[in-house]
């Protein structure tokens, strides 16, 4: 699975996610990637999110929207909301992570499994990439 989130100069957020699914999956199985609110979500009032991992758990937790809701309704910061969402994911037995940027330009890249491929870059700065254990 791949994805991207961004904040532009006009203060607008956007998210995109794309995948081939799981290796050896049953034909017709669909994960969280194309489900708005599960694997992809963006709202200028809160956050843009793209997820990757065990899709069924992201669907059950409605993870991407969960982060937005925690920020909007509970007043959590981006990091607090992302950490809580990933903890919820783990409670459900899900592996993976997500990327997120809020309306202020803060970013978060939480995960609970290895092999996470990430990159980010503010305009005017060098790109930062890493493969997280």
């Amino acid at each position, binding site marked *: *699975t*791949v*994805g*991207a*989130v*961004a*904040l*532009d*100069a006009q*203060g*607008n*957020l*956007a*998210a*995109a*996610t*794309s*995948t*081939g*699914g*799981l*290796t*050896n*999956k*049953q*034909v017709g199985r*669909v994960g969280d*990637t*194309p*489900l*708005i609110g599960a694997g*992809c979500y*963006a709202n*200028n009032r809160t956050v*843009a999110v*793209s997820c*990757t*991992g*065990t899709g069924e758990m992201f669907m059950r937790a409605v993870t991407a929207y969960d982060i937005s809701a925690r920020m909007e309704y509970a007043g959590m910061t981006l990091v607090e909301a992302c950490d809580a969402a990933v903890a919820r994911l783990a409670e459900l037995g899900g*592996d*993976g*992570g997500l990327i997120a940027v809020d309306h*202020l*330009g803060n970013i978060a*890249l939480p995960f609970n*499994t*290895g*092999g*996470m*491929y*990430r*990159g*980010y*870059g*503010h*305009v*005017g700065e060098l790109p930062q*990439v890493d*493969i*997280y254990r």
Partner: protein
Amino acid sequence: MSIPVIVIHGGAGAIARSAMTPSKEQSFRQALTEIVATGQQILAAGGSAMDAVTEAVRLLEECPLFNAGHGAVFTHEQTHELDASVMDGQTLQAGAISCVSRVRNPVLLARAVMEHSEHVLFTGDGAEAFARAHGFEMVAADFFSTEDRLQQLHRARQRGGMMLDHDGAAEASGDPIDPDNKYG
């Protein structure tokens, strides 16, 4: 005003950096760096967040290292099924497609659904009909296949399970599959 920023991910796998060959790691790093830089250039030129994320994901789909587009994993039936979605935070408009197998860049189709349809999600034959109706590039079903992904499918079949995106331990260690990978 906040500084524009783009963040990308290339998937989730059971394999950590320590299990990857140096050359493979360099390939991943280079691809990620170039794609982030492209997104930064779009934003620096005044492009929209939607344009930046669409192009970043399109480039990730074109790179065989990642599980999307060319380089996508195989289903149990040794086929490919691709899913994608986009969402615009300003308007709350969204578009998505699932289970397509002939559309070269699923993220572009998802965006077209958002921009040219009253609906949010099309799947399978309906999604591909929408693609044809809107002039999308269609490719042969094996366009998405790579030898690495085929070998990954064979290993998963032997183990009778499924795997997340990256099975780097096998090539790095010679082990047929990561013994700690609960998906395989």
